[in-house]
């Protein structure tokens, strides 16, 4: 077990926790943040797997573009009114 394995284990924990948080968090904006974290972990994995091209794409798309897209869509959907949204979600779940 080398030091790289430790980093891999921590990143797998990041992936699984981020995915679970994206599915389970009440607040949808928090879930969008968790999705960006999943793509962060996957991007580092691509570097470890010797695929810098794919890592660059995932970093650009997952961190920058997807965050922008989700943020703008969340604004148009009215998800930014955090307190209102939370009480609404609690009624629905």
């Amino acid at each position, binding site marked *: 077990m080398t030091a790289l394995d430790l980093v891999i284990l921590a990143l797998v924990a990041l992936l699984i926790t981020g995915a679970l948080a994206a599915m389970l968090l009440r607040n949808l904006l928090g879930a969008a943040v968790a999705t960006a974290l999943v793509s962060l972990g996957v991007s580092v994995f691509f570097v470890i797997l010797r695929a*810098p*091209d794919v*890592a*660059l*794409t995932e970093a*650009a*798309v997952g961190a*920058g*573009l997807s965050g*922008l*897209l989700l943020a*703008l*869509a969340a*604004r*148009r*959907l*009215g998800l930014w009114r955090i307190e209102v949204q939370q009480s609404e979600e609690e009624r629905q779940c």
Partner: protein
Amino acid sequence: MLTRYGSLLFATGFAFLLFSLFIALPMGEPPTLAGQAILNEAANSVGAANIVTSVVLAYRGIDTLGELSILFAAATAVGLVLGGQARAPRPSKEDGAGGFILQTGVDLLFPLLLVVGFYIILHGHLTPGGGFQGGVVLAAALVLPVLARPEESPSPAALAWVEGLAGAAFIATGLAALAYDHAFLTPLLGAGQLGDLFSAGTLPLLYLAVGLKVGAELAKLLLRLAEEGPAA
């Protein structure tokens, strides 16, 4: 209730599928036959130091054209789905402007993002990166100022012109190969010296067209989404 059981059944079947995938995956074996052939061949025949780039643009050039078409169709469909309504009155200067830190930071970051984007595009055949990644960086550079100052957004007409011209340039470069009795999208101008900026024939030109097209397209899409809708 029926949906619950259906989901359970689906999850069981899917777990079985994943397990069989786990068993059958070739872990750590040598590349496929085509992969090994490309690894041996690509550097000499295409001349790009980045072998993934030569796969994407030279061996599978038509696939990349199809990918561009899909992205274009998605951007057009977003415009169609969201479109039609009258634009909300433009926000006044005081209304939506970000704070001082955000405005200054965006001003500093904008030229840096442009430089990084063009570097990623133009070095696509030497280092990791290429048209799609650089295009995403360019789109982010164009949309970021809108976050700080909503009243200054780039004009959609200019973006549409850039997008159309870049797409036409990609196809024209492909058609030029036909004039020299090659197949569509064959790289021309010779392989050149491996590792030079001006090497790999027309691949850098193709990637420049891809980058400009993707950047303009995604910027248009994001600006469309950033507009104030009637119900929001």
